[in-house]
Structure formats: structure tokens, C-alpha cells
């Protein structure tokens, strides 16, 4: 609480204070050219399918930072409401924060009105926000949920576009995934068929796209509840290294050692009121 006296309260929206400084740094003198740090993208395959009793969402678990795998087990299916989940592709930070904000807004709505939020509300709030930021928020989302009006699957693009569809794939691996979905999708599938279809679509994305990989997460949403299966299918590639690369203590050379003795200057004891203290 002491910090709130020191820092200024954060304003709303994005903070552009550093933009002129960044431009100067990037275009500066030839030797001093500094590149801005690249945000981590998820380079993903996500997919969703509407089936007889609800919606099945699927995602891979690899997050890449250009050509390096930054996270082998990242969670791309985000919680929005008890009956609505959202898969996110694009810039990792953008999808996290956008879905967090959406979730908070819908929780407030639920408390105010005493109702479960509808999927179309979530879509409208997202669309509104992403359009307002003119595509600067790189979030490509697939929203799925079941509410009192039925099961719905929507996609929202980074510029604010929206589409209501029975099946969809997004992310860098969407083309191979869409191939599988277009081939085998039919209306009113049962649960096992739908799970197999989404899982195979994500698997196609994982094998054909370098930005997707590792495991497959699934999320099944029905009127009764949600089954978040993480992981649904683990990667079969777990080649183990043959040798042990452990270092014995004393392997790291110690070049220099300085010891700073901390002097105890002054000691105070302050009693605190704690609730339920013994």
C-alpha cells in the first residue's frame, strides 16, 4: 500500500510515452542502431467444432519467439466464463490480456444481473475493443460456449471482424487444420467423433506447421459443464538423451570471493493485529 503514494496511478488504455524515444533509438546513428525486442507470438494451431451437445475447442501447446521454441507447454485455451472458453492465436501477451479483461467484464456482468453471460455478449465486447485499437492488438481468437440459446462458435479477428461458424481453425497452422475439418466435418456429430476430429485437425497443424507443436489440449463445453483436457494427446516424440550431463560440485571455477559482513544497526519489533490470532 505504501507504493500507491510513490507511483502515479495508471491511466486507461495504452501508454505511448516511449514511442518518440523508441523511434530515435531505432533510427539513431548507424553504429548505435538498436532493434526493439520482438513480442512473443504463439505461432499456433487452434480449432473449434460445434457438435450435437455443445462445442469442442482444441489447441497445440507451443509458443515460439521467431525461430526458438519459448514454451513447450503453454495453455492457449483461456477461461472466459463457466460456460465460455476462448482459444487465442497471435501475440501471446495480447491474447492473455484481452481474454483476462473479457473474463473480468463478464464476471461483473454476472454479478450485476444474476445471469450467466451469453456467448454473443463476449463476442460483442471483444469486437468492440479490438476494433477500437485498430488492429494494434494482435489477437486472433476462437470463442466457443453453450448458453441458454444453444451452442455457439465465433471467431474474432485482430481488426474487429467477427464470424459465426460451425467449425473453424486459426493460427499459422490453420491451413492444414482446415483441410481436415473440411474433409470430415458433418452436423450433429457425437462427442467421440467431434473430439477425434478436432484432435486430428490440430495434429495436422502440428505436423505441417513449424510454429505449432508438442501436445494437444482439448476443451469440451456442454450444458452440463466443461471438461478441460490438458493434455488430451501428448507428443509421441520424447527422445531421451543417452548421457547424464550433471556437473560435480567444484566444476565451476571460483575466480574471486569477497565477503561483506552486514552490520545489525537497529532492531524494532512491531506487533500486528491479525484476524483470528491465537
Amino acid at each position, binding site marked *: 500500500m505504501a507504493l500507491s503514494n510513490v507511483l502515479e496511478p495508471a491511466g486507461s488504455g495504452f501508454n505511448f510515452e516511449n514511442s518518440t524515444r523508441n523511434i530515435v533509438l531505432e533510427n539513431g546513428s548507424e553504429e548505435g542502431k538498436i532493434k526493439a525486442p520482438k513480442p512473443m507470438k504463439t505461432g499456433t494451431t487452434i480449432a473449434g467444432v460445434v457438435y450435437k451437445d455443445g462445442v469442442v475447442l482444441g489447441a497445440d501447446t507451443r509458443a515460439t519467439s521467431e525461430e526458438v521454441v519459448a514454451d513447450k507447454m503453454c495453455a492457449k485455451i483461456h477461461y472466459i466464463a463457466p460456460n465460455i472458453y476462448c482459444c487465442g492465436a497471435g501475440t501471446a501477451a495480447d491474447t492473455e490480456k484481452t481474454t483476462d479483461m473479457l473474463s473480468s467484464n463478464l464476471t461483473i456482468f454476472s454479478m450485476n444481473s444474476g445471469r450467466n453471460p451469453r456467448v454473443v455478449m463476449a463476442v460483442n465486447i471483444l469486437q468492440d475493443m479490438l476494433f477500437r485499437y485498430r488492429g494494434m492488438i494482435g489477437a486472433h481468437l476462437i470463442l466457443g460456449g453453450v448458453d441458454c440459446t444453444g451452442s455457439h462458435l465465433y471467431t474474432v479477428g485482430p481488426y474487429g471482424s467477427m464470424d459465426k461458424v460451425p467449425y473453424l481453425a486459426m493460427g499459422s497452422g490453420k491451413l492444414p487444420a482446415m483441410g481436415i475439418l473440411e474433409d470430415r466435418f458433418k452436423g450433429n456429430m457425437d462427442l467421440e467423433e467431434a473430439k477425434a476430429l478436432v484432435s486430428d485437425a490440430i495434429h495436422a497443424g502440428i505436423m505441417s506447421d513449424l510454429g505449432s507443436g508438442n501436445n494437444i489440449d482439448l476443451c469440451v463445453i456442454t450444458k452440463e459443464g466443461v471438461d478441460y483436457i490438458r493434455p488430451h494427446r501428448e*507428443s509421441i516424440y520424447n527422445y531421451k538423451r543417452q*548421457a547424464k550431463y550433471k556437473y560435480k560440485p567444484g566444476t565451476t*571455477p571460483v575466480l574471486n570471493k569477497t565477503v561483506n559482513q552486514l552490520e545489525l544497526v537497529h532492531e524494532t519489533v512491531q506487533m500486528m493485529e491479525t484476524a483470528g490470532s491465537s
Partner: protein
Amino acid sequence: MMISARAYGDNGKMKEHHYTGPVEHKFSPYAFNGGTVLAVAGEDFALVASDTRLSEGYSIHSRDSPKCYKLTDTTVIGCSGFHGDCLTLTKIIEARLKMYKHSNNKSMTSGAIAAMLSTILYGKRFFPYYVYNIIGGLDEEGRGAVYSFDPVGSYQRDTYKAGGSASAMLQPLLDNQIGFKNMENVEQLPLTLEKAVQLVKDVFISAAERDVYTGDALKICIITKEGIREEIVPLRKD
């Protein structure tokens, strides 16, 4: 539906662009096809290993495109970078090897091939071959030799070297395990063939975990005075 389109950047890697007005598209004569190459020299053997994935942007062109090319009975070259230049460069090297054999009635030695490659690469100093080369073989005395190159022909003889997309991940590990760098109180045993092969396999398994351009399979060419032996090990395909 989505206005932002994915396009290949100048070097073949994925680049995202937002439509903000007319954009000048430049034709780039180069592309980056990924792949990692590694060579290790021992007392009486040499190893040249490469993965077999050929990629461009986020797609895979082939899962079975090894990057080691056999030049003579005692020399193998590993080339990674732009595949078009790799193919042409190896064709030129093979032609020059034949010419040398016909004029001098003997095969080129590893050191001679390295010196020749340096000249060939520098000949295109102002429109370089976008290839990272590593030559592995046996020298005239039968000891292992590794020569590593940059795209314009600068080269040196090494004990071990990694090149290509995952080189920055592999080289420090080799420095530590083969060169015993940054370690004290460790018994510095000479590198045996079995240990070198096992190390190369482990190191590529790790590289495939974290580098998207490395994977599918690993091909190791083992060069000894008996000849050249190949070993193929599967790697992650995702």
C-alpha cells in the same frame, strides 16, 4: 476476413505485415531453408552430422533432405543455408574434384578441398553463396580434421564446429563437453568415437526441442580409415 496477411520476409522467414498503405515489394534472390550441421574431429576419425529437414517460412518442403554430401573417401561436406546455393556449390566442388583427379592422378586431400572452397566462395564476394559450410575429414596423417567457413570464404581448422539455424544452441554445449571450457577439476579424456556419436545424437535431440527449423531425422557420416559409414536417427517431426 482477416486483412493482415502473412508473407515471407527477405530471408525466407515469416513476416507479418499490416496494410498501412502502398508497400514496396523487393525481390530477394535468397531464401532461408533452415537446417543445422555439425562436425567433430577426433584422433583418428571425423564426424559430420546434419538434420534432414528442409523448410521455408513456417512450412516444410521435405523431411528427407540431408545436408551432408560425400566428396571423397575421406571427406564429407555439410552445407546449410539457402538450398539452391548449396546444390550449386556442391556441384561445382564435385566438378573441380574430378578435374583435379584427372590432372593430378590422385584425390584431393581435406586441406586442399578446404583451400579450394575458400577461393570458390571468395570468387562470389559481391553476390555470395548463402551457405554455411563445414568440411569434415581425415588429413594426410590420418587424424580427424574439421574446417569451418563463413559465406564468403574465411575458414579455419577446428576440432568441432556447429553451423546453421541451431548453431548458437549447439556450439556452447560442444565448447563445454568437447573443449572442457568453463570447467575445472574435470578429467580431460580424449574423445572416443562412441562418445562423440552419443554426444552428437544428444545434442541434436536438444536442438530439435527448441529450434523449429531442426528436426525430422539426423544423419551422421562417420569417417575413419576404413571408409565412410552412415547412421540415421529419428528426431521430432513436429
